[in-house]
C-alpha cells in the first residue's frame, strides 16, 4: 500500500466490539476490515442499477469530452 493517513474513527462501543471481533476472527487488522468495508460500500453504489444507468449514459454521451479532459 502507498502513502496512508491516520484517521480517528468514532464508533459506538457495540459496533466497535463487533468490528474488533470480525478482525479477530479473520485474523486481520481492524483498519483492513474498515478499508474493505468502505471499498465494498462504494462498490455496491457503483453496481446500483440506477447509478450504473446514469453513469453509462454520461460516459457514452460525453465520451469525446471526457477524453479531452483526460490530459489533466
Amino acid at each position, binding site marked *: 500500500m502507498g502513502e496512508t493517513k491516520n484517521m480517528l474513527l468514532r464508533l459506538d462501543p457495540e459496533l466497535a466490539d463487533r468490528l474488533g471481533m470480525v478482525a479477530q476472527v479473520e485474523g486481520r487488522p481492524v483498519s483492513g476490515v474498515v478499508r474493505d468495508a468502505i*471499498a465494498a460500500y462504494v462498490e455496491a453504489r457503483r453496481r446500483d442499477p440506477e447509478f450504473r444507468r446514469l453513469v453509462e449514459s*454520461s*460516459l457514452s454521451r460525453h465520451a469525446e*469530452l471526457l477524453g479531452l479532459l483526460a490530459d489533466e
Partner: protein
Amino acid sequence: VRALDLVDVVALAAEVSDVEPPKLLELLDTPEVGALLAEAQAPLPPHEAAAALLVGLVEIGPLPTGNRRLALLAALHLLGGYGLEVELDPHATRDLLAAVQAGGPDAPSVAIWLGPHVMARDPLDCALRDSLSTDAWRAIGLAVDRARRHRRLLASPADLLLGLLREGTGPAALATGADDTTAEVVMITPADAGFEVGTRTVMALALRAAVTLGHRQITGGHLLLGLLDGGHAGLLPAGVDATDVRRRVLDLLGLADSPERTDLGARLSELIRRLRTTDPAAAVELEEVTELLRTGVDRTIETVLAWRGELSLTALGQDEAVDSLLALQRPPGPVPAGSGEAGLLARYVADVARYPKLSRAEEAELFAVIKAAVEPEAALSERRLIQSNLELVVTIARGYHASGLPMLDLIQEGNLGLMQAVPRYDPTKGYRFTTFATWWIRNYIQRAAGRPRA
C-alpha cells in the same frame, strides 16, 4: 433515482481514477466538498445546482488527477437524477472548464451557459408539460412542495395523491370527496421538479388514460386513474373505496360507463358462447375481431409509452412525439372572441392558426433558400418558417400558464426563441425543424417564466 451524496461522488471518482475507494473517501470527505454537496441539494433549479457542483469540484480539485472529469460526471449525474440530459460541445466545454480552473467564470455564469444545453431525457416530461390542466399542475406543484418540505428531493406517489386531495378543485378531489379548496398554487415547472420512478410511472399511466379516453388534457382525474392503475389504491384515505373512486372519476370526466357499456364484455362472451353452438365459424370470427380491437387499443398505449424511450435532438422519434402532442393540444372548436387579454389571445390564436403547416419537403426547400442567402427570397423563407410555427409556440406556452406570466408574454418570449432557432437549424442533422425549434421556444419561455418579475 436519489439525491447526489458523498458516496455517489466517491463512486464517480472511482470511475475516473485508479485510486482505491478508501483513499478516495479520505480525499473527498472534506468540509469543502461537504458544503458543495449541501449546496447542490438545496432547492435550486437543477442547472444551477449542477453548475455549482461543476465549478466547485474543479476549483477545490480534491483528487490528485481527474478533477475536471469528476466534476463533469458529478454535474451530469445530478442532472440525470432529475431526468435531464445535456448536449455539450466537447471542445467548447473543455475550454470553459480550463477557464474555470484558471479562476475564470463563477458558478452563476456557468449556470447561464449550461441552461440552454439542458434538456429533458424523457419525452414524458414534454408530454406532461404541454398537456397538464390547471388542477393537475396545482396537484403536482403541491406534491413537489410537500416532498421539499419533508427534505426529499423526489416526490413520491403518496405526495402526488396528497397533492390531488389538497388541490381541491379538479375531478380527483371531487371524486375522493376532498373539499380543501385552500391549497395554495405552487409555481413549479417539471424541469425543476424531481419525481420518484413510481411517480413517473403514475404520470405515464395518466397520459395513457388521457389518450385512450380521447382527452386533450391530463387532469387531476387522469393522475388519480394513473395512481389506481399503478397499484397505489392502498394510499387512498381509509374508508375510500378504489372502485368507487374510479367510477366517480370516470363519471366526472364525462365517461361513466353506461350499464350497457359496462356489460359489453359479458354480453360479448355470452354472444360468442351462443354462437359456438349455432355457428362455430362465426363465433371464431367474432373472437378474432374482438381480439383485433383489443390489440389496436394496446398498440395505441404502447405508442404513447414508447415516448418514454431515449430522447435527444437527433432521435427522429421525437418528431412523432411533437406531432402527437400538437394533435393532443389542438383546440376542440371555434375560438371565442372577446375583449381583454382573453380576447386578444383568442384573436392571436385564430390568426396564427391560419398559417399553413409545412411538409418536410417544403421545410427543406425553404432552408435551402435561406442558405443561398439571396435576398429578398431568404428573408421571405425565414418569415414563412416562423409563421408556420407560431402555433407551436402557443401550444408550448400553454404549458406554462402556471408560471403566473400573462399568456401573451409567454408567447412573445417563445416567438423570440423560435426566431433564434431558424438561423441555427441544420437540416443535414436529420431531425425536423419543429423538433429543434421546440427546444429553443421552451428554453426562452422557461427563462421568462423563471425570471423574477418587477
